[in-house]
């Protein structure tokens, strides 16, 4: 239950950081905005590390056994931020969440399948219900914008 609440909370703060980043990139450009974003993130992480940990092992031997692709999440993050800044202004906002969610949901289900070996019916049915709800609300917004 705790993780469920945390995951929802994570979505809430995601949208705040997205809004802040889009304001910032409007002022200084997409990549510089992202640069500031990551610089602040890096500094905050280092501060966090010094608070919670006495020592951090960053020698190469501590990276043994980590597959290279697992290190690429940060790079993907940069791709997501840059692509979002190019794509999102060009499509109506009511579609943005819907389309991004479609990509997330189907990839998420696929990933769960590869990690665990099966996908429960509930995940597929639940995912489709979420999709229906999203489409319904998009239509409500659409009608309001058209009126």
């Amino acid at each position, binding site marked *: 239950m705790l993780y469920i609440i*945390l*995951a929802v909370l994570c979505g809430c703060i995601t949208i705040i950081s997205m809004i802040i980043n889009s304001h910032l990139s409007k*002022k200084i450009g997409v990549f510089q905005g992202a640069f500031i974003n990551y610089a602040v993130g890096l500094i*905050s*992480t280092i501060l966090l590390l010094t608070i919670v940990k006495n020592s951090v092992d960053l020698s190469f031997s501590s990276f043994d056994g980590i597959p290279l692709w697992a290190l690429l999440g940060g790079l993907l993050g940069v791709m997501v931020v840059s692509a979002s800044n190019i794509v999102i202004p060009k499509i109506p906002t009511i579609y943005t969440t819907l389309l991004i969610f479609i990509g997330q949901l189907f990839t998420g289900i696929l990933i769960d399948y590869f990690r665990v070996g099966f996908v429960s019916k509930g995940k597929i049915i639940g995912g489709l219900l979420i999709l229906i709800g999203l489409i*319904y609300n998009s239509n409500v917004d659409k009608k309001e914008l058209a009126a």
Partner: protein
Amino acid sequence: MSYRTLNFYVSLIEETQLRNGGNLMYKASAIFIGILIAIMVTFNGILANYTDQYVSILIIHMVGFIALIIILILKKEKFKLKKDIPFYLFSGGLIGVFVVFLNNLCFNSLGASLTLSLGIFGQLVLACFIDHYGLFGLNIYKFKKKKIIGFFIILLGLVTMIIY
């Protein structure tokens, strides 16, 4: 592919877009962004398994930081930091640290699809709240009561995902 042929293809795609009533390419790109996010959350979550919660956040931000330095050098952009930027605009990165932290934590106990779906729900609810009050200097869009129906269906979907 030469630059000219590339240009030709781009104009061809643009023409098709116009015929299809616009931004099909961008809509496909939005789905692609969703795919990238799902892969990113997975990579980060697995990295946290290999190292630990805090070191993984450090690695993720370092890799992104280095990638951006390379991009900025290649693009030869000049820094525009002199402009008066409100202080709160710098806080996005700080919030990002908590986003990564929570994502990694939840991914390893809830899996990819549930973590992402719950996240979307949080985004939708807060987005409605922000729109309703016009926070962060955004335009005010009053909440439509009809959307409660949509949220109810979404919630039903989440419960189905969690229980089964």
